[in-house]
């Protein structure tokens, strides 16, 4: 077999401890007494975009939610296994969940701005952390909005309601809201599924730019998107991790038949 492109990506088995951002070890999750994830082990690299793909209900959102323990908020749950972020197991008893969530940003499928001004939306997380210094807040808001490529559009109306923004702007505002806390990991749950193609492209560019600052984990149903933006991709089926490798190989020459079937659209 000859190589078309020189592959710069490391193989998923070769991450060193420093290069790993999220280390999932034998994670099993049951929601409402139904087994959703079964013995998932996956190491997600730092400052890369990792895509989680799979059909609806396969458990990829649950996996995403288990990185900031949102599953506990949503429903009755049962979790075993470990998720290591920053050399600590976030499922440890001593872990403070709200602090953990403030360190791991999350963007949802549909933009969910609070009914407040743009400024208040972006500074919400910081204010929750008890930050009161006006100057610091101003700077953080501006920085977050710049990082989310929204600053130029909203700089003149920071104190207008966030609900006046368009859908794409709102989604970028959500990214800015998460970025304001300077998270190490940014979780994106189908962030563009409710947006038009052009806005989607915008968000994708933004994601690539954000790689410098944090690890991005994205759940998506859009194969092209996953292939376009992600460095690594994991295919999950019925709660099992079927295949996990760098995106180039996963999308061009998958190892498993199931993966190939899925990405070529034969089922799912």
């Amino acid at each position, binding site marked *: 077999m000859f190589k078309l492109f020189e592959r710069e990506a490391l193989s998923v088995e070769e991450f060193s401890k420093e290069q790993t951002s999220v280390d999932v070890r034998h994670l099993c999750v049951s929601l409402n007494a139904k087994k959703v994830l079964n013995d998932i082990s996956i190491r997600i690299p730092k400052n890369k975009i990792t895509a989680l793909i799979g059909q609806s209900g396969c458990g990829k959102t649950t996996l995403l939610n288990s990185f900031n323990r949102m599953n506990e908020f949503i429903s009755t749950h049962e979790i075993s296994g470990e998720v290591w972020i920053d050399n600590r197991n976030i499922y440890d008893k001593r872990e403070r969940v709200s602090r953990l969530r403030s360190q791991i940003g999350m963007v949802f499928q549909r933009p969910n701005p609070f*009914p407040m001004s743009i400024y208040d939306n972006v500074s*919400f997380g910081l204010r929750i952390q008890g930050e009161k210094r006006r100057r610091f807040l101003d700077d953080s808001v501006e920085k977050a909005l710049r990082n989310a490529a929204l600053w130029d559009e909203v700089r003149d109306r920071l104190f207008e309601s966030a609900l006046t923004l368009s859908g794409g702007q709102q989604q970028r505002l959500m990214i800015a809201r*998460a970025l304001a806390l300077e998270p190490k990991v940014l979780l994106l749950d189908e962030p563009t599924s409710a947006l038009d193609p052009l806005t989607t492209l915008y968000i994708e560019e933004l994601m690539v730019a954000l790689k410098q600052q944090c690890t991005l984990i994205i759940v998506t149903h859009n194969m092209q998107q996953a292939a376009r933006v992600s460095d690594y991709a994991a295919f999950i089926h019925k709660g099992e991790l079927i295949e996990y490798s760098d995106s180039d190989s996963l999308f061009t020459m998958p190892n498993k038949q199931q993966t190939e079937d899925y990405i070529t659209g034969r089922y799912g």
Partner: protein
Amino acid sequence: MISKFSLLTNKSVRGDYAQQFKQSLLEVLAMLACATILIVLVGIFAFIGVQGGRYFMPMSAYQITTVHTLSHAQDVQGTGTSVSDRSVQKEQIQYTLSHLSAAELASSLQQKLLIQYTAQTQEMPKIRVSAADSLYQINTTSGQTLVGKFVSLQEGSKVSQSLANLVVLQSEVARLQQNLSDIQIQRLQSLHRAISELDNKQVARDTPLYQTTLAEFMLWQAYANNIIEQIGSYKINIRLDSGELLSLAINKVQDIYQPNQLSSWQSIGYILNKIVVFISDSPKQASTSGGVFPAIFGTLLMVIIMAIIVTPFGALAAIYLHEYAPDNRLTTTIRICVSNMAAVPSVVYGVFGLGFFVYVLGGSIDSLLYSDKLPSPTFGAPGLLWASLTMGILTLPVVIVATQEGLNRVPSNLRSGAIALGATKYETIVKVVLPMASPGILTGVILAIARAAGEVAPLILVGAVKFAPTLPIDGEFPFVHLERQFMHLGVFIYDGAFHNQTESQVSSLMFASCMLLLLVVLLLNLSAILLRNKLRNKYERL
């Protein structure tokens, strides 16, 4: 062939028609129902408005002449003297004030007589009603309304036949009254205090100090009495319809005028004056005249205290039930119970308030804190606080249910958004959920206020009375007297409707109070709705 075809089309047309009829039947029925509701609503407002508004209109004075025809066999009005003539006519004159026209008044009186005389063999008297333009209407300071012919003004022994002097006499009386109050405040009060101090020190009555003080007191007292007598000597004499001459002290006269000769400006003045009196004065003459200020005040105060109590309680209970309570059978049961609490008859709450708040709670407060005043109760009697608490319990389910609905309307993705940003559950609720649910909470409070303002049955049991001599807030320490009984518009109307049915004037006062109650409730609702809409605009544009 043709006939068959036509039959077919005919049939299908008929089917169409039936279909169309079915379609439009529902629409027409729905429209009719809606129209009926509209008519009923407009009818209620128009009826109450007209009946209540009439109270403020000036009345006309009429002279009613009743002519009794007595046959010879009958006694004349029980005097015992038999009359031998074939028939004798006896006239009886009555002065009256009415909003009706002369003809209407005559027919209504005729109606009454008809009912009265159907069972009797006596001949029915004839009635003549004529406008009596020369009559004067006098409203006294105690709220009485007198109608009669002006006879004279009296100033001691001086008698004048003209009414023009009245203004002069009134100012004279006012001056004398000023004098009197000066004496009472500046002299008599201090002297009285001095004497009672001496009494307290047990100074003997024959000491010179006591004697001189007493003498001085007596002197001023005599002077004051003299002035009172002087004031009493200014009189106005009028002849009433019974022929009796009535002498009325001028300081008792609030206003005097000829009702049939008011100019349009005077009428407007009369109406405005009546409205002001109605809103700002207290009821007089056993709630047949005067105003309803204490009732407005009591209603508003009760509703405000109730809202202060019920809003946080209801909102907190709803937050627990909706946000914190585990989703199990007990919670469901509690939710169902809360919704059913709204259906409990209000009088049951009243009995509960009387039995628990007044007797148990108030009784124990009295025995703990006010034991020196027992057996006369302080909090152990119906009062404003207990009424507000009872109404609070009565309206609690309304607030809880409305708040729950408000909380339900907050999208769950906003909660998860806040949680994902590191907010705890408490922070999420306080900073995101509650502001968005505030229109729902306000809806509950609006409904609660409207219900409490219009409720009567429980209030009668726990503190609302038909006449309260004092307001619950006054200048006396501690200024807010929650233990006092209070007046309430609904109770006032109830009382008026049941106990004063005979007099048209009073039923008008009742209707006027009804109109006012409607206005008060509408005003409260309107302001709350405006506030709610403002909040909705702010928080619910999603």
